[in-house]
């Protein structure tokens, strides 16, 4: 019965959070603005009223990005756990976050362009870390998941060192705080030029991960079992890892580093839903989307006008949840 309730509870929660996210912010939107907002959708932007421009230019992309990034982190978290057959695996495992942070910091320190260019650098940094991890694993002839973890640690450390160098080079007045803010994650700077490329890139990748449920399950059962059942584990693990990392890089490059969602969403889903069946990964995504949208709401409304880093809320909410789940699991003896 617990399983069924999730299907009924989660969609209204997501809908409510999304609606709240659309109307909350420094410029207040009212329900009576809805006709104006919809009516002026296809007008040239210089003729639109301020309400419409705020909604379609800022609020809507921001909400979409919160939902999408949360969904990406949740699904990828579930995928990482399966392909590494480890409930502690998360998108940070292969150094995506550190790679993207390095890329973003590089753009900031070099003073290249605006936030759109920063996004490009961060995305490139995340993908580079994946490529380096795959190269390392290949070089080590790694048949085992352990070599992925080890390579991830190596690349992650390398990127962290690079980030430290950049921080010492950065101008302490503006650049240093920009780097710090980026590594704590925020959806404040999201606009339509960032949200729509993210959606265009990540939706097919998410669809791919959801479709490949059978190979994912087989990878989780171990390489020997995988081959005995006819699936070659190495190319599939590399493919699914690349898909998950691509989506996470795209998301991180828009939002900055958001802690814990990728780890906690699959755990909450497993606790609420139990089985890792067909619905598991979409549910992970929905849980991730709820967490991130709620955290973003808190980040923009609790700061008294100022935007707070969103990781504060995801981590602050995630730690107690994880602790409770761990204690409960132990009591259940599983």
């Amino acid at each position, binding site marked *: 019965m617990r399983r069924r309730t999730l299907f009924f509870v989660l969609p209204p929660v997501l809908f409510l959070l999304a609606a709240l996210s659309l109307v909350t912010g420094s410029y207040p939107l009212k329900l009576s603005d809805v006709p104006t907002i919809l009516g002026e959708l296809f007008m040239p932007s210089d003729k639109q009223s301020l309400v419409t421009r705020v909604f379609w230019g800022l609020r809507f992309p921001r909400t979409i990005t919160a939902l999408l990034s949360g969904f990406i982190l949740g699904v990828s978290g579930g995928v990482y756990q399966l392909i590494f057959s480890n409930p502690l695996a998360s998108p940070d495992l292969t150094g995506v976050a550190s790679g993207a942070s390095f890329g973003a910091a590089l753009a900031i320190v070099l003073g290249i362009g605006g936030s759109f260019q920063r996004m490009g650098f961060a995305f490139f940094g995340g993908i580079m870390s994946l490529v380096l991890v795959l190269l390392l694993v290949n070089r080590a002839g790694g048949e085992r998941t352990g070599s992925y973890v080890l390579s991830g640690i190596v690349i992650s450390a390398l990127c962290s060192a690079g980030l430290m160098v950049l921080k010492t080079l950065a101008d302490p007045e503006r650049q240093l705080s920009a780097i710090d803010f980026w590594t704590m994650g925020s959806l404040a700077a999201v606009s339509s030029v960032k949200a729509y490329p993210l959606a265009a890139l990540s939706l097919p990748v998410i669809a791919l991960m959801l479709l490949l449920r059978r190979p994912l399950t087989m990878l989780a059962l171990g390489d020997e*079992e995988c*081959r*005995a*059942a*006819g699936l070659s584990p190495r190319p599939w693990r590399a493919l699914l890892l690349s898909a998950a990392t691509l989506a996470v890089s795209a998301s991180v490059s828009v939002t900055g580093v958001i802690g814990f969602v990728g780890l906690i969403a699959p755990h909450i889903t497993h606790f609420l839903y139990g*089985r890792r069946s067909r619905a598991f990964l979409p549910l992970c995504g929905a849980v991730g989307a709820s967490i991130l949208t709620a955290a973003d709401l808190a980040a923009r409304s609790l700061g008294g006008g100022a935007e707070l880093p969103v990781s504060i809320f995801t981590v602050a909410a995630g730690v107690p949840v994880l602790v409770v789940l761990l204690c409960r699991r132990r009591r259940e003896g599983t």
Partner: protein
Amino acid sequence: MGRRLCVEGIAAGYGAGRPDVLRSLSLIADAGKITVILGGNGCGKTTLLRAIQGSVPLTAGRIIYEDGEDGEEGTVDLSTLEVRRRASLVTTMPQEHTAVPGLCGLDRVETAFYVSRGIFGRLAASDYEKIYSLADSFGITELLGRELTAMSAGERQLISLLRAAVQDTPVILFDEPASALDFNNTGAFFSMLHELAGKRKIILAVLHDPTLALRHGDVLCLMREGTIQRLIDRGTTDFDELENSLRRLYPRLRLNREPLFCYDEGTYMCPQQQEI
């Protein structure tokens, strides 16, 4: 010519720079018989099974599957087959497997149909019937709905066995299949093995316990330092020869003429006193 698996002078190892684990190893396993591999730790038993399954590449030799069932002689060199095609002929019940919380027994058993259904194909009702009827005959239907991480090692072995049986390949490799099974399940496991052999399967099992091997094996392969030193056909080998061969591998072993412990008509006879 019947159905058999011929391993012809293979060598295999774990990558360049490291010495081969298997060296000019040959053996023939016939359908309908239980072929048991015996050997000390680290002699390459698991590697041999991996080489036959294809997870360790061969550096020499070949592995031939012969099947003359339908009147025509069909021979396949297994190493030329890609992974999925190979798994339609050979499957392994591996020694180790992993799981994450949330994956149930059924999730593991369902993977047996990857060979026939591929990545996207849905399992047919008949596929599930096959799973449930076999699970029922093993008496482990209850395990299908249980999480793998909540199972004991023995229960996981039973689920793994079920997956291999459902996959229904002509060659089935077992890597220490009974290492964690209790008394009842060990008995059930080996009667299952005899049943599979009765269906013209080629059964190759790595065992650590010579008493189990002697009780259930039709052919014993004694393995040492990466090669098969002796192949003993129980049907044509007399008592002294058997004991002498086994004592080369297990110096402290002594065979009893009278079975200490025998399996008869589904019941086990245990001696009251154990001789030491």
